């Protein structure tokens, strides 16, 4: 058995492969293992159904946020259409499950692939132009997709929505918060693992090169158009996958949640969590979801004690305001997001009492 490595007292890396290690030390590996054991074996048995519901929402949002982070944080392209892509995934899963009769374990990845194709179509302008134009194209994509979801009656049943048959493996039915907890977090772990490792590969390095300097990247022989589209497709795949999970979890799909504010919510997750940081996306999703619940709690509380009447204070504007404020504050004060705060806190513990 090899020696356990704990914190080295200097930088002893000798080659690039060591630089790319996910875990600097075995300590981190053990911690992650413990965390996963706690997550899968202790959490679902101890927490209340309401907490499980929140955790599930976080899990789904985190998958979408990881996808968006691949695009924004690693490739440097902004998408304002991820709310709609999430919707495309949800509808694709619903249609595949009801019309084609696919089982959920096929329908969810298939929905992801369909969303990736849709995303690639929207992403084509990025090949001709750099920078901001893709953002505008995705904005257009958001509105067009929203329109199609509402008005393509024969496929999406318009405003009525689609009800999805329960997810089944053999005879075992996945229903209720607890079984969905396992499904969602299994997917989340898998998707995180995939994203982290892709970012260490040739593809991830190409994405980062494009983000940092696209001309130089082109000069080094990276076909930019191909990689931008690839990044876009990956990112939409994640969004569609999350949307499909969401559709199964919520049982019925209607078009109205997939609007521009959902897209902004996903962007907020990425920025608040930390751009270019996969765990950051999970932090961001956690933060935003908890913020949502906290605001709901606060408005409920204020209504109960009679400070405001139910008509006086609506939940939506307050939420919108706080979202905007948190995006703005994070950009101004900590542009690298929660992931950076987390790093600083950790290194403070490690370096204490000699913090320099």
């Amino acid at each position: 058995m090899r020696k356990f490595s704990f914190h080295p007292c200097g930088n002893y890396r000798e080659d690039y492969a060591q630089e790319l290690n996910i875990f600097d030390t075995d300590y981190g590996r053990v911690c992650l293992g413990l965390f996963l054991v706690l997550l899968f074996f202790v959490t679902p048995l101890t927490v209340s159904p309401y907490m499980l519901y929140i955790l599930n929402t976080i899990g789904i949002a985190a998958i979408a946020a990881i996808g968006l982070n691949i695009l924004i944080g690693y490739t440097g392209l902004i998408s304002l259409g991820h709310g709609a892509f999430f919707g495309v995934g949800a509808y694709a899963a619903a249609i595949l499950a009801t019309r084609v009769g696919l089982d959920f374990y096929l329908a969810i990845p298939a929905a992801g692939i369909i969303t990736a194709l849709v995303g690639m179509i929207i992403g084509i302008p990025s090949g001709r132009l750099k920078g901001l134009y893709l953002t505008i194209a995705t904005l257009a994509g958001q509105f067009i997709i929203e329109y199609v979801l509402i008005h393509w009656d024969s496929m999406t049943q318009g405003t009525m929505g689609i009800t999805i048959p329960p997810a089944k493996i053999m005879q075992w039915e996945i229903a209720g918060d607890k079984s969905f907890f396992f499904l969602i977090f299994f997917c989340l772990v898998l998707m995180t693992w995939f994203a982290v490792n892709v970012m260490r590969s040739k593809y991830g390095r190409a994405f980062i090169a494009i983000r940092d300097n696209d001309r130089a990247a082109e000069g080094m022989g990276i076909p930019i158009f191909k990689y931008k589209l690839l990044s876009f497709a990956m990112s939409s795949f994640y969004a569609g996958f999350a949307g499909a999970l969401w559709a199964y979890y919520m049982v019925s799909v209607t078009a109205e949640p997939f609007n521009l504010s959902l897209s902004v919510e996903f962007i907020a997750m990425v920025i608040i969590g930390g751009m270019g940081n996969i765990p950051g996306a999970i932090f961001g999703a956690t933060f935003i979801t908890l913020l949502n619940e906290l605001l709901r709690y606060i408005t409920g509380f204020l209504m109960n004690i009679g400070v405001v009447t139910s008509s006086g204070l609506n939940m939506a504007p307050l939420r919108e305001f706080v979202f905007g404020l948190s995006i703005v504050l994070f950009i101004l004060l900590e542009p690298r997001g929660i992931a950076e705060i987390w790093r600083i806190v950790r290194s403070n513990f490690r370096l204490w009492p000699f913090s320099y």
Partner: protein
Amino acid sequence: MDFFLQLLVNGVCVGLLYGISAMGFVMIFKSSSVLNFAHGELLALGAFFFLALITWAGLPVLIAFILTLVGCFILGFLIEKFFLRPLIGEKLIFVIMLTVGLAAMFKGLILLIWGGNLHTYPDFLPESLALKLGAIYIAPVYSATLVISVLFLVLFGLFFKKSAQGIYMRSVADNQKAALSLGVHVRRVFALSWAIAALVASMSGIVLGIINGVNVHDLSSIGLKVFPVVILGGLDSIGGAIIGGIIIGLLETFTGGYLSPSLRDVVPYIVLVFILLVKPYGLFGLVEIERV
């Protein structure tokens, strides 16, 4: 035929509105190459300031109008000072995300204060401004809009071509570092462009409010409709914004009139995607060919 003509006139009128809404947007883009996603909220803020001054404070129209313009000018300064200035020299992605955040913030704020209902201004434009051409009736608001947009077009044209500040602004937009090293006061240029943009936005917000009533959701969706308009006209051309606005306006009213009313709101975005694919710098935009 009358239906066609009425649609044509309506389209041009709506288009002019889009055009003047887009002018403030182009202003910011021209001087700092920032895409301002909070533009619709700036429109709404102007419209609501005016509403508050007229109905709550009960001021006469002209004074309220001037106060709104001054207020929004200052607001633009403040936005730049507190939110945008710390980001000078940062990556563009942060600045754009910041405007997305600002948009959500302002929208929430307006909704908290005024709610999401439709408000209307009292009627104050004289009926003598109305035009009648045969069967076609042009409401006074639209003729006022026409006058205002032509006036601003000329003013801005002169400003960017002749005045020192305007030339500074163009130089900053072209190359920030070079402008800085040649002694252009970049921070002042930014502050001024945001202030002027907020002023123009508030003015177009008021005009929109007179026509459609004041509603946050409508106004902020117009802020997003600015994108097809400016992409069609060319992102950095003020004349292009007006022409792009008219084309988009015509397109919308004709689709609404002949095809289907529900398609009306999506058509600009469909056109937007096509323009991006075919002629991404728009009709009058500066072509920078860089295929990377």
